[in-house]
Structure formats: C-alpha cells, structure tokens
C-alpha cells in the first residue's frame, strides 16, 4: 500500500499533501485539547513503534503468489482513538519514508491519506465506534475489527488506483487496475481484521479502560466541528475529480482502447481456423507486434537524446569516481 514517489506526479502528490496536512492540522488541534495528553504521548509513540514493526512482517496470500502487510490504521484507532491514531500513523509513515525508503517523500501525503485519514477519520468514527458503543462484547469486537479493516483497506486501495491513474504513470485501464487491486486488498484486509481483533480482544480482557475511553460518546469527534475536515475532503474530491475528468477526456474508454491496441488495423487472414486463432493469440501476446516505427517518426530526435543521456551518465559516473578517489588519496596516511 505504500506508494513510491515514482508512482505520483508532482501535482497529485502536492494535492494529497494539502489534504493530509489539513487532516493532520485538525487532529493536532483536536488532541491538544486533551487534559492528559502527556500520559497519552508514550502510548501513541509505542503503538506507532508496534505498527512499524508489524508492517515489517509480510504474510503470503494463498493462491495469489503475492504478499501483504498490516496497514495498522484500525489497530491504532481502536487503541488510541481517531485523531491520535492519525498522528501516530503519520509519524510511522514519516520514519518509514526517511529511513526505509518505504513510501516516497513526495508521496508521503498520499500515504498518510490512504493509510491514515481513511481508517482513522472515516472508518473509525463511522463504522468502528458506532458498533462498539452499543457494548464492547468479544463477538462485536471481532465483527467490527474485521469489517472496519476490510472497508478501510478497500477504500485505501481505491484511492491508490485513483491517485496513480491521475498521475498518468500506468496505462492500465481503470477497471482492470481496480480489479487487480481490490481483491488482493480484500484478502489483506481480512488478515488485518483478524490480527486487529485478536490484539484488541486481549487488550479488552486485560486493560478494558484503554478501549472504552476511546468509544465513549464524550470523546473527540463529537466535541469538535467536522466542518474543516469536510471542506478539506471536498477540495480533494474536486481536485481528484478534475484530474480524472482530464484523464478521461484525453483517452478513449479503457476497453475500446485496449481492443484497438490489440487488434489494430491488421485484418486477420482467413486461412485455417486453428492457425488464424493461434496467430491472433500470438499477436495479442507479442510485446512488439510490428518490428518497425510507425512511418519512421521521431527516431532522430530520440537517438540524439539518448546519445546525450549516455554521455551524461558516463560523465556523472566519472565525476563520482574522481571524487571518491581524491578523498581516498587525501585520507591515505602520508609517507
């Protein structure tokens, strides 16, 4: 779920930074009103360290050949409440981005939104807390944890698809991209839900005050206006919607486009039916169906560009080597 910088364009990265900054600002303002903030801070930091460690463990998803890791947003929200959980996941993502290259610096806003704002400020107050407010029984805790984790991961994955498509870095049609992302995150969400439920159940049995403090009606979201958050989300919706409509206007419908790309203008020869089918399949699977440029456009300019790039790469490597050698020479003991 951690998005790398390469997957986002600068405008989309900037818009997501703005949205997450708004949500974080609201969370900071909200939590600063808490009388026992000093007591909560070590819990928040340690929960963050715990989620950090949990995200290092990848589990394989049977039958898919892929793996996933916990998002941790719902666990944090269950333990700490929405606003503190958002701040904690933001801290975790910042440390991961800086020290582990897990998620990019420019994509930090998008990652905080997908893995923090959605579970902590949308799913937790709208799904998790209302169900548990009727009474935190073991069964209800399991049901809520699984439901909330699945929904938050599905929404997060959906946002990843939107952000990547708006950035224009993948040519996958929207539907196909969605059909790849959502099912895999359904499986991850189920595992995350089970893990979250198991941990929260233990905490409820041993330290119930930790959980009940967060689901009481007096806590945070009811006492603070949701207006700024709603405005931030509305601005984001307009930005994302505008980006999507631009994308939609410049390309044909995904399915039409794919069909056009695969079949092109080539008429299949009407020979042996088996051979024709085989040729069609072969053509559809070939990475380069026509071994030449279409009407020879743009070869010259690209070739000069590449030559320039090769020279620059060589120059950069030489400079790097020269500096390293010079430093070694200088640091060598003088005879």
């Amino acid at each position, binding site marked *: 779920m951690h998005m*790398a*910088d*390469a*997957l986002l*364009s*600068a*405008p989309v990265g900037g818009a997501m930074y703005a949205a997450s900054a708004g949500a974080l*600002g609201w969370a*900071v303002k909200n939590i600063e009103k808490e009388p026992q903030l*000093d007591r909560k*801070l*070590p819990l*928040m*930091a*340690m*929960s*963050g*360290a*715990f989620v*950090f*460690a949990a995200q*290092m463990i990848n589990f394989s998803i049977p039958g898919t050949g892929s793996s996933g890791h916990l998002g941790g947003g719902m666990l944090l929200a269950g333990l700490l409440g929405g606003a503190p959980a958002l701040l904690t996941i*933001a*801290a975790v993502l910042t440390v991961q*981005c*800086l*020290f*582990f*290259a*897990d998620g*990019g*610096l*420019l994509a930090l806003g998008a990652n905080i939104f997908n893995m923090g704002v959605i579970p902590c400020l949308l799913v937790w107050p709208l799904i998790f807390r209302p169900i548990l407010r009727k009474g935190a029984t073991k069964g209800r805790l399991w049901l809520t944890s699984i439901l909330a984790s699945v929904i938050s991961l599905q929404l997060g994955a959906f946002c990843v698809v939107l952000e990547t498509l708006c950035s224009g870095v*993948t*040519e*996958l049609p929207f539907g*196909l991209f969605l059909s790849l992302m959502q099912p895999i995150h359904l499986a991850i969400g189920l595992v995350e839900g089970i893990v979250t439920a198991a*941990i929260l*159940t*233990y*905490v409820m049995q*041993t330290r119930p005050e930790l959980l009940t403090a967060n689901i009481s009606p007096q806590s945070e979201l009811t006492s603070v206006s949701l207006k700024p958050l709603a405005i931030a989300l509305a601005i984001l919706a307009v930005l994302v919607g505008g980006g999507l409509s631009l994308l939609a206007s410049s390309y044909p419908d995904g399915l039409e486009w794919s069909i056009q*790309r695969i079949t092109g203008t080539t008429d299949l020869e009407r020979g042996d039916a088996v051979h024709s089918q085989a040729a069609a399949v072969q053509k559809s699977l070939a*990475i*380069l*169906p026509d071994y*030449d440029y*279409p009407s020879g456009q743009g*070869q010259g300019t690209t*070739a*000069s560009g590449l030559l*320039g*790039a090769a*020279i*620059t*790469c060589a120059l*950069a490597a030489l*400079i*790097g080597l020269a*500096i390293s050698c010079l430093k070694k020479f200088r640091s060598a003991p003088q005879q």
Partner: protein
Amino acid sequence: MADIRSKINALYSLEQLAAGDTVLHRLHPLGKLLVTFAYLICLLSLDCSSLHRLAPFLFYPIICTAIAAIPAGMILSRAALALPFALLAGISNVFINRTPALRIGGIILSAGMISLLVLALRALLSVSAVLLLVAVTPFPKLTEQLRRLHMPELLIALTEMTYRYLGILAEEGANMLTAFRLRSCGSQWPHLQLFGSMTGQLLLRSFDRAERVYHAIQCRCWHLGRRQISSPPWRIGDWIFLILGAGSSLAFRQFDLMQMIGEHWPW
C-alpha cells in the same frame, strides 16, 4: 524477531552515517531539505516517456554519495526496496502500449517498455535522494529544522519518540521470545492460537516500559511544548549548495540538455 531486530539495527545504521564530518554533513539542514524537495519535484514532473532526460538527474545522488563518503551499495540496496511496487504498476504498460518508440542497434523498445524503465529509474533516483538527505543530516537536526518551519510540536515529538521506541519494542519482543523458548520444550515460535495473547502482551509490556522511559525523560526537565531552538548560521556554502542543487534540477527539468548535447556532439 531476529529479522525485525536486524532491520531495526539497519535503521539505526543510517543514522550512524549522519554523524560523519564532510562538507555535506556540515551544510544547513534547511538547504538540504529544499534541494531534496526541488530535486524530487523536478524529477517527478518529467514525462513518463522521457527516458533520456533522467540522465542528468544522476549527478546529484552520485556526486553527493561520493562527497559524503557514503557506501553506494547501502543506498542502492535500500532504494531497491521501492522497486517492486513501481514495477508492478509499470509492467502493464509493456503489454498495453506496444507502439515501437526507439531502436538501439538491433533492439527495438516499445513505448510501454520505455515508460517502465522511466518508472523504475524514477523510483531509484527519488528514494536515493531521500536516503541521502537522512544519511548526511542527523535525525535531531532534521526534526529541529521542522520545528523552525513551524510543524506542530506534537507531531515532531511523536515522530522522534516513535523512532526511539523501536529499539525498546525490539528488546521487549526479544525478551518475550527468549522466555517462551526456555519454557516451550524446543518449540521455536508460539502456536497460532497464542498469537493474539502474545502480541497483546508484547504491546502492553511495551506500553509500561514506554511510560517508564517517558517519566524518566520528564524527570530530566523535558516537556511537550514550544521550545527555544537555536538556528545554525546560514553560510555562503549553503547558498552555493542551494543554488547549484535546486538550480541544476530546475535547469534539467526546463531544458532538454541531453538532446542538445547529442545534436552538437562532434561525432
């Protein structure tokens, strides 16, 4: 647990590099932060089909790695972690956009292949730039700079504490695992049924330890709130670094220098 401990050790090893004493280490953190952001924005706003235009962006990581005497393998191996997701998103382009776009000798590259290469290179370069920033700037200096930029104190304190508490969590986890192994007659890992209670127990133990550490810090006069932070002097070298670093990124973004070099090369 051993895996987590080794990863946490790896995390702190990057911080050890930041204790170096080279020209880059001595620069003002704000300058390094601004240059990194300028580099990322310029790099990531390039078109996905401009493979050759990525070449000049190699200068920054290569030169900085050499000047700061950072092992290039360490940066590259960490940067490679960012590759799988970028490749996952870009691999589809190879199959969808198969228009031939470039011939190098006898090899023809499609537009999809080029965009995949661009994605992979962008991922490597952007991650390297961020890792370099952390490798030449000690974490406390970086967070102090964020305070000077008026980031909320709570968020910065939380980030610092999360980072420091990772070591405590690893210690608690290792202690629990050792205790389990000593009592479990040869079993190395707890059964799946025990997972919830073991993990919950680890969390609660770590909470208690975190509170004790926090009280100890408070006893040493630390408190949450605005603090007086001294600003390091901004020297002429910082101006030069900022102008060269951010200016070159902007120039590489604005002008297709590679095209110009290729066209005017004496061959």
